[in-house]
């Protein structure tokens, strides 16, 4: 019971802190916090696969990067509206996830890790070597998308503060959506597949379709994160599709605690905040970050999230 009381308090406190942060944060820190929230969305979307469905993907950046590129390419001819470019970019990511998922979900285990990696790397090299996508230099976003309601412009995405709050709203929305999905019968089936797929199949569930649906949803949400990255950075380059980005997201998920949703968001925050702190402190920040990651594995066996859920973890006692 400990965790169910502590978690909402913790989340509310985090939300309050994020809401008030612009009062004290300078522009650089606002932008950095925006990037952290984007990575939190990306990590939560991956947790749906890794933590809840038991599908360890090392190619999740494929969908993230494609959606970002979709926005940049749609915005080539001039100013575009967020109202249609966001759904369109997410649709691109979702369609890619449908096509890739239909193939890769035939494998499992370590082979699944490697086949998702293979598809992401193929796309990475294709984009890197293609003039249409701007090659290895990447492509700039001409202008940030506009967001107007019947002629009124409540949000100006050129404005750092507006981008910050839009990203915050979307991060909360993604968290609530995923909570909702995971609490639904569909989500229970996913967890069942993670724990024992043959049993779910013999219970009559078409597990392949459930896994594919989860893969597509995770891909679309990764696309949302990629879209926001393109808006925030104003540029997309092939590295956003590369295995390093997928690996980074996976590290955030495991570091924070897989299958906890809030944990991976926490993992994204912890990794990026420490990276910033260490890099201010010393030129050799990677050494400290690496040591931190190793220490978490050795001393916090269920990830950072377990700091806030120790009692429940002890009671459940499953791996």
């Amino acid at each position, binding site marked *: 019971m400990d965790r169910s009381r502590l978690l909402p308090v913790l989340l509310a406190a985090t939300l309050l802190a994020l809401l008030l942060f612009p009062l004290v944060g300078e522009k650089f820190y606002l932008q950095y916090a925006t990037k952290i929230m984007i990575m939190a969305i990306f990590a939560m979307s991956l947790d749906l696969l890794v933590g809840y469905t038991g599908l360890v993907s090392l190619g999740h950046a494929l969908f993230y990067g494609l959606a970002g590129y979709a926005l940049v390419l749609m915005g080539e001819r001039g100013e575009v509206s967020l109202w249609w470019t966001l759904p369109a970019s997410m649709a691109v990511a979702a369609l890619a996830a449908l096509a890739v998922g239909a193939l890769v979900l035939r494998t499992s285990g*370590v*082979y699944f890790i490697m086949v998702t990696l293979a598809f992401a790397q*193929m796309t990475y090299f294709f984009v890197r*070597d293609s003039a249409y996508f701007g090659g290895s230099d990447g492509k700039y976003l001409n202008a940030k998308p506009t967001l107007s309601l019947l002629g009124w412009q409540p949000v100006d995405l050129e404005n750092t503060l507006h981008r910050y709050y839009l990203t915050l709203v979307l991060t909360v929305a993604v968290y609530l959506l995923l909570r909702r999905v995971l609490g639904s019968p569909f989500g229970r089936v996913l967890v069942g597949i993670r724990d024992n797929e043959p049993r779910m199949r013999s219970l009559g569930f078409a597990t392949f379709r459930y896994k594919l649906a989860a893969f597509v949803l995770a891909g679309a949400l990764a696309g949302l994160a990629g879209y926001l990255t393109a808006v925030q950075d104003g540029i997309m380059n092939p590295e956003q599709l590369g295995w390093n980005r997928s690996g980074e997201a996976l*590290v955030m998920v495991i*570091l924070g605690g897989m299958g906890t949703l809030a944990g991976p968001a926490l993992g994204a925050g912890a990794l990026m905040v420490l990276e910033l702190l260490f890099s201010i402190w010393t030129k050799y920040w990677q050494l400290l970050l*690496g040591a931190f*990651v190793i220490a978490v*594995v050795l001393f916090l066996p269920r990830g950072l999230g377990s700091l806030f859920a120790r009692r429940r973890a002890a009671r459940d006692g499953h791996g």
Partner: protein
Amino acid sequence: MDAATLLIQVLNGLQYGLLLFLIASGLTLIFGIMGVINLAHGSFYMIGAYLAFWLTGALGNFWVALPAGIALAVVLGIALEWLLIRHLYQRDHLYQVLLTYGLILVFEELRSLLFGDDVHGVTVPDPLNFSIRLTDTLSYPVYRLAMSAICLALAAGMYLLIARTRLGMMIRAGSVNRDMVQALGINIGLLYRLVFALGVALAAFAGMLAAPASSVFPGMGNQVLIISFVVIVIGGLGSIKGALVAALLIGLADVFGQVLLPQISGMTVYLVMAAVLVWRPRGLFGSA
């Protein structure tokens, strides 16, 4: 493409493939026997290359540096297994992924601290410092041929070790049933430590061999890491024979991809991998 160019490309492909085999065989041993997914394997390759650079300078001779480097790599492997890896055998693979990711960061930064971020070179060692002329304009460096020969010799040695010796028998048994081997009175902890050290030494040795043929530079480990994983998956996880076949396949595919399909050369190895896995989802020699 005339015969001499073709020959050079085939030799390049084989040499790259054999080097990949050295790296990948350690990776597949560590995974197949210990069940550990080791992301830091590329770092061990990098460490080998920097060891070759440092020791050749310090000891004055590449051939002296080589055994010294291997000894250091074995010590490193034993230390890492004892300090870190042995705590992870009973846990989810993903924690091994996370821990070895942390190791990549640590090694990369230590490399930067000790050697800086410049590109270094190791001169080709003496008796092999010449080329064989193939035609008036084309020649092939003997060192690369020697590299391939050394890799082949090691492949044969590993086959004998695993298939023919008592130690190899224990290793094979340990990969099938850890508890049973322990119950038979074999110190499985020590066995795993040896296997891990062997894997580290193989990757570092590959780095040392590669140092004179290419350059020694930051990030060189990450380059080979992913491609070695591709090799062991194509070959079938845990299969040394599979790693050899897959490494040669990937080496040739990569070299000929660059010659014949330069537009999509980066994609060729992944296309090969996707094709193989569609045909055989467990890799060429995979069993489980």
